[in-house]
């Protein structure tokens, strides 16, 4: 039982340890270098453009419910986007496919308005539920894009078959489009049809990056450390397997058994 999942346990302990190690170093005042992420700079610009044209910003957190980590990352990004929008006094519209996400997003946006010092401009009606059906949600969102002509469309979270419908309709309405998803099958469509696309892990990194919280930034460093480790495992594993060196191959087949 426990021993059966020992490898999973080790990986988890290792990840947690790296995270807390980098958090502890970050407190000493070392602010890590993080390479620029596509679209994050454009996000402010897009909101600014929406303000100039007096158009709203459209934010979608995907089809996931709050039981999907991508949705939580999206809500985390929403928190920063809506803060910016509140500062600029630009309305942010967010149709939802799930009631629980709607509730949570309303909280997020309300808090952002508080942080921006504009609690009076918070409009709960702008964050609303449409339908639990994927394509009813899409049909509605398409209509919103055509009728309200938002100047910026931000798609973050778990998207599925509808990604291209949204992105192409959005393009036709002339909006700046910034997408981010970890759904491997939908990344190509966002890459092709949107102006900027956060690929896979960049979605999670963006949510940490935008928070400007040293603890969150530390997690990006932790992710990188884990990546280096994976790289090493691949390298050592491949060499071991080429030379048929038993200690390595045995260890790998135990550790990577899942």
């Amino acid at each position: 039982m426990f021993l059966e999942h020992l490898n999973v346990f080790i990986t988890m302990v290792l990840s947690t340890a790296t995270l807390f190690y980098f958090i502890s170093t970050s407190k000493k005042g070392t602010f890590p270098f993080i390479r620029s992420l596509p679209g994050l700079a454009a996000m402010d610009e897009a909101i600014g453009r929406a303000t100039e044209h007096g158009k709203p910003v459209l934010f979608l957190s995907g089809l996931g419910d709050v039981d999907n980590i991508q949705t939580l990352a999206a809500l985390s990004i929403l928190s920063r986007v809506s803060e910016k929008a509140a500062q600029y006094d630009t309305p942010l519209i967010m149709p939802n496919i799930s009631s629980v996400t709607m509730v949570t997003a309303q909280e997020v946006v309300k808090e952002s308005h508080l942080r921006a010092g504009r609690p009076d401009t918070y409009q709960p009606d702008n964050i609303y539920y449409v339908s639990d059906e994927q394509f009813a949600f899409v049909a509605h969102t398409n209509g919103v894009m055509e009728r309200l002509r938002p100047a910026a469309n931000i798609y973050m979270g778990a998207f599925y078959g509808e990604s291209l419908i949204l992105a192409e309709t959005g393009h036709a309405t002339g909006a700046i489009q910034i997408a981010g998803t970890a759904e491997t099958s939908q990344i190509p469509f966002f890459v092709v049809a949107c102006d900027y696309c956060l690929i896979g892990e960049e979605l999670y990194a963006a949510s940490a990056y935008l928070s400007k919280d040293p603890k969150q930034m530390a997690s990006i460093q932790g992710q990188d450390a884990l990546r280096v480790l994976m790289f090493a495992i691949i390298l050592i594993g491949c060499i071991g397997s080429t030379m048929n060196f038993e200690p390595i191959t045995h260890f790998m087949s135990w550790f990577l058994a899942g």
Partner: protein
Amino acid sequence: MSTQIIVWIAALLTLCVFSFLYKDNVFYKLAEHIFVGVSSAWLFATYLHSDIMEDMLLKAFPSAFHQTSVPDWKVLGGGIIGLLILSRLIPGFVILSRFGVAFIVGFQTGIQLFDTISANILQQLGSTIVPLFTRKPGEMIKNWISVVGTSSSLAYFYFSKEQKGIFGMFTRLGIWFLMISFGAAYGSTVMTRMSILIGRIYFLLSNWLGVVKI
């Protein structure tokens, strides 16, 4: 041409949706509002039956459904969490709705965390590891491409270093692999999406107009 009213309704709704391709119009708007209404009602009704009735009430109060099984009060917990989330409808109770969300977030995160480590990291790493030198040249080329492809693409996601110099070249290679994969994925999706459109066209030409016989 079909004489069934349901086929006509379905066909006209299909055309209403397709009219959006020309531009947003009254017919699309009509179809959109019908769809939102119908779908949320339908799903709501199904979830009422399947979850609230069957998964909660039936198990907690079997006698009310003329069943003899032992009542399982624990299942009412779901209802309580649901009510917590609903409580935000009453002003001043917003904090309670957070408790419900917190529960769902916490335990779903807990479930997914370990399964992701196991299935998406460890097992996948296991399949990435291949011998780099073998007797079969074809297999060797394949193995090299996959190892180099995976590791260079993995390097692209490395955030703590500027993509410059040799590292930059390596990540550039990673981007090429990513681009090939996006292109190939796009190409293979064309089929998928076209199948669905063809399904609709079959419906229009065969079930509705009767031009095609299958």
